[in-house]
């Protein structure tokens, strides 16, 4: 089996007496969508923060494309190919949709120190930004102020910004949230096609989307991975049903 694009090994993080993640080891392989599910407070957000560099783990490692990135900052991990979307949109709300996408393009081109020349007139940056917006279906909103977008459109813009980075792996934190039935369907189809470009670690509460998309699912409960397997394996797992779905065995 090929080396995973992204791998965590025995990640641990505690906040006081609360063990938010406990010995979490997961792999993300090329071409797959690996979903992380779990009830609220299971440690999903902490895990993502550890993978992306927001939290330093108490123990364990994070490897991206075979390189140990545990000690690197969020920005350095992004430079090495980690693209993420946020659960709560983190966008420049006063800026236009295009400007938000351009920010990703500037980051990808490593051009933040160019003090001269209008960014919107840079053909290569603009093309990259517009292409990303077009791919998620919001190119027609390019000149809109981001604060005026609907919640669902902001989710799409989040994904577009991540796309401009052409990452080696995507970390997507609830990309379906607030999209509605139709929007969720469109996003599911889009992510389905995106996996061939770069694998996706998907944290999602929309179980229909998870079951439709995931090649593998890991179930996180109280900071521990209690099961990893295919959709069928997870659906049929008694342990998962007991711990997560709340069913009696």
């Amino acid at each position, binding site marked *: 089996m090929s080396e995973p694009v992204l791998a965590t090994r025995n990640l641990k993080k505690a906040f006081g007496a609360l063990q938010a993640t406990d010995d979490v080891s997961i792999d993300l392989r090329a071409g797959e969508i690996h979903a992380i599910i779990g009830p609220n407070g299971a440690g999903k957000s902490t895990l993502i923060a550890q993978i992306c*560099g927001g939290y330093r783990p108490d123990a364990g490692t994070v490897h991206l494309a075979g390189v140990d990135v545990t000690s690197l900052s*969020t*920005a350095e991990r992004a430079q090495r190919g980690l693209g993420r979307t946020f659960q709560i949109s983190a966008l420049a*709300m*006063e800026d236009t949709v295009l400007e938000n996408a351009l*920010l990703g393009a500037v980051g990808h081109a490593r051009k933040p*120190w160019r*003090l*001269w020349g209008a960014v919107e007139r840079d053909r290569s940056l603009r093309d990259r930004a517009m292409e990303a917006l077009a791919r998620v279906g919001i190119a027609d909103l390019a000149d809109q102020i981001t604060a005026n977008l609907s919640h669902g459109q902001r989710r799409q813009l989040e994904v577009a910004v991540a796309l401009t980075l052409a990452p080696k792996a995507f970390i997507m934190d609830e990309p379906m949230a607030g999209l509605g039935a139709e929007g969720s369907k469109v996003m599911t189809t889009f992510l389905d096609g995106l996996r061939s470009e770069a694998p996706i670690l998907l944290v999602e509460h929309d179980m229909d989307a998870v079951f439709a998309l995931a090649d593998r699912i890991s179930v996180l409960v109280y900071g521990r991975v209690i099961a990893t397997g295919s959709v069928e394996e997870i659906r049929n797992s008694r342990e998962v049903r007991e711990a997560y779905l709340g069913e009696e065995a």
Partner: protein
Amino acid sequence: MIAERWINWIVLLGFVVLPLWALFADEPFTITLATRAVILALAAVGLNIALGIGGLVSLGHAVFFGLGGYAMGILAHHAQTYAPLELGPLVIEGTKSMPIIWVTALVTSALAALVIGLLSLRTTGVYFIMITLAFGQMFFFFSISWSAYGGEDGLSIYVRNDFPGLNTLQPIQFFGLCLAVLCLALGIHSRLRTSPFGLALNAARQAPERVETVGLNPMRLKLLAFVISGALTGLSGALFADLNRFVSPTMFSWQLSGELIVLIIIGGVGRLMGPVIGAALFVALEHLLGGLTEFWLVWLGVILLLIVLFARGGIIGILTGKAGPNV
């Protein structure tokens, strides 16, 4: 509502027409007032890069204003006393040349901003405000005790410094020089704002976590903005000292830092001409109301209060109907 670019041109035109009128009406004091407004505007344009684009509320920008002032004062003092400045083995001749003084002011302020920024930018919000204020107070009290350069009494320079090809003693020529420098600073602000750096800096103000996840370091972006901002404010300090032919510790005072913030808020935070409009209004009120009452700042306070409560985009916001450059 008026388009912002028209307001910008009208304000600039006002800064050309008023002094020209004063020249023909033989009102040199009006030219001096306009020069004061232009220099304060330059200081605030510098701060506006850090505050308006980068969101850095610095209550210590008087440090750079003062450093620029003292760079001018010290170099000119050594030139007029014919005694070189001795820094250990290093012996520096004084100078009356504005370009040399300006470069010294720019470099000194930029270096100070680099050091202060490196330490201050580890904090955010109210802590950033406090740490920049602390640096300001440090420089203020140091200058008071610096007896070699006048201490609390300050330092007088007998003759205004020289600029090649100009007679800077002529108020209108010195005004023109200051206006040209202000236009250059406005050009820098305008270019920066639309550049990739400006885009990233503006995003770092609004969503630093997003900036990090596209592979950029928000702190480094803000540090560069702080250095550019400090350098421009330092340059304005050198011009201010030349206008008054006097430098004193008040140039380092926290009140001055506060006034620069007030100018920007009144004109419009982050707007290209916000600081210019704020400075013009400030100097006009200082002159018109200052003659009537020594408590004229109360009225400035009332204006500030009304703007903060009812017009978030400052005067430019009222005129354009837009609270920010985009919204």
